[in-house]
């Protein structure tokens, strides 16, 4: 069995993994390896051919493949090693990685530090429990995206999209560009789950009808989808009898949410937060297993790729420091607690001593929408430490609030930090 040893091994070469590898190398790690299961680096960005990437980091509006290539070019320039077309099978808590590809067979790799960057997966038909027959023609929006944008196949001619997530809306436009008819987009929630910009530019522009509080009651068809039966739902997601409609179509696309992909993390003993679906992490994105870090959508699903890149830089830098044995000896961890109208906060805990040295960003999501001005408050349970005003808070848009070095004194004394979102 071929054996290799590395300072930092990054699993996955999407935006989180690429940034982690770059940061690890720049921070002084000598041997850095990226393992990717696809035939080329870049991850899902390669199939996201639409614009809108890089506005934060590059102040430019780039398509996904261009955003990826800037980092791929840097990886090659920095002489980071890569293993493509390679599947990681197992990771141990001692940071031993078992992987396989068709040239080398089974490969054993000992890493001083690992960055998990496997990204996320789309929720499937089974996970949203769609009743009806099981014909061909039911795909996730991302699968359709890969076929249309990379492989050059059209999955069907007439579509219904379930879920108003961004990928679903972007695919509705893309399929229209390629000559298909998108009959309907159905959303079970009373509000849009993706960005308003995508609703306007992907659906309204092409007269594609969106129905909120609607879902698929049944899929109709034997060998191929012939139609779907839609139904309106009440506030408790219960179907309202008499509101059913048969919508003829040959394909149903699902855009019903993303889940961090952590099968490998679990094998290594990494503890997973049931709310985010990703590892419990500290301010350096280190998991509960020493030397195993994580970056990007594998931790929690971001809205913007730019923030995934930022997370990758932090995790990669910390992994590099760990691999070189120069992690700080003294750490004082303090927990973050999701308070009122906050679903979760990442990181889950931070090293108090670091607050004195650098700005520390906390990222969170609201539980329910508040369509009026709000305060996002960080407290020690009683006293306000810092707060940030926003015009509204929506579950679909991640909120960032920062701790600054001048708040060190009060953070230092706190037992835990509680973050709340409340109307102003």
């Amino acid at each position, binding site marked *: 069995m071929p054996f290799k040893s590395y300072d930092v091994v990054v699993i996955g070469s999407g935006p989180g993994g690429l940034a982690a590898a770059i940061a690890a190398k720049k921070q002084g790690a000598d041997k850095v390896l990226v393992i990717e299961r696809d035939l080329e680096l870049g991850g899902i960005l390669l199939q996201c051919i639409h614009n809108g990437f890089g506005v934060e980091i590059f102040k430019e*509006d780039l398509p996904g493949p261009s955003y990826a290539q800037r980092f791929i070019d840097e990886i090659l320039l920095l002489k980071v090693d890569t293993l493509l077309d390679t599947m990681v099978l197992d990771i141990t808590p001692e940071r031993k990685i078992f992987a396989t590809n068709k040239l080398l067979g089974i490969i054993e790799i000992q890493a001083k530090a690992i960055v998990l960057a496997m990204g996320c997966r789309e929720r499937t038909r089974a996970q949203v429990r769609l009743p009806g027959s099981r014909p061909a023609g039911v795909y996730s929006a991302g699968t359709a995206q890969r076929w249309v944008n990379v492989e050059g196949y059209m999955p069907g001619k007439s579509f219904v999209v379930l879920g108003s997530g961004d990928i679903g809306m972007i695919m509705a436009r893309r399929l229209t560009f390629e000559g298909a008819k998108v009959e309907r987009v159905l959303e079970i929630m009373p509000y849009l789950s993706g960005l308003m910009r995508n609703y306007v530019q992907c659906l309204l522009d092409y007269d594609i009808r969106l129905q909120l509080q609607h879902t698929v009651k049944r899929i109709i068809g034997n060998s191929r989808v012939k139609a779907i039966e839609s139904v309106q739902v009440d506030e408790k997601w219960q179907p309202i009898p008499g509101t059913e409609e048969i919508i003829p179509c040959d394909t149903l696309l699902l855009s019903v949410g993303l889940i961090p992909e952590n099968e490998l993390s679990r094998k290594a003993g990494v503890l997973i937060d049931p709310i985010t679906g990703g590892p419990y992490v500290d301010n350096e994105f280190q998991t509960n297993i020493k030397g195993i870090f994580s970056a990007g959508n594998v931790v929690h699903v971001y809205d913007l790729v730019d923030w995934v890149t930022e997370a990758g830089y932090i995790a990669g830098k910390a992994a590099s420091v760990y691999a070189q044995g120069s992690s700080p000896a003294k750490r004082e961890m303090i927990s973050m607690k999701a308070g009122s109208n906050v679903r979760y906060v990442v990181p889950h805990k931070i090293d108090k001593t670091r607050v004195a040295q650098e700005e520390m960003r906390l990222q969170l999501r609201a539980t329910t929408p508040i369509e009026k001005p709000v305060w996002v408050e960080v407290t020690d349970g009683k006293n306000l430490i810092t707060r940030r005003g926003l015009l509204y808070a929506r579950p679909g848009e991640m909120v960032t609030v920062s701790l600054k070095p001048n708040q060190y004194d009060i953070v230092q004394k706190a037992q835990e930090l509680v973050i709340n979102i409340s109307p102003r």
Partner: protein
Amino acid sequence: MNEETKIICVACPKGCRLRINRQGETIVVSEQSCKRGEQYAVQEMTDPRRMVASTVRIQSNSHSLLPVYTSAPIPKGKIQPLLMELRKINLRAPVKMGQVVLKDALGTGIDVFASRDIN
């Protein structure tokens, strides 16, 4: 003539609903709107434009499609004709990111670029 239109502003993620009165050449944005919202409304009412991203055929060992995008937003009415033009293109690898795939598309002065390298 007095025409009223409702649009959703996408100048920022908030997504305000704007009511627009068009009195001949004059455009009046009513209801709460910010400066950026007014600019957006005027642009949408006079010359709506969009970025377009699509693919063109390519002959290579690894890929059959090359993703491409417009260097600037193009007039909305030109989107379908542009897609027709892109369907006629058939390139041969190698192609470099940023390479011009279609120059001065439909006389708009806007080029279409390759979104990535394909070797």
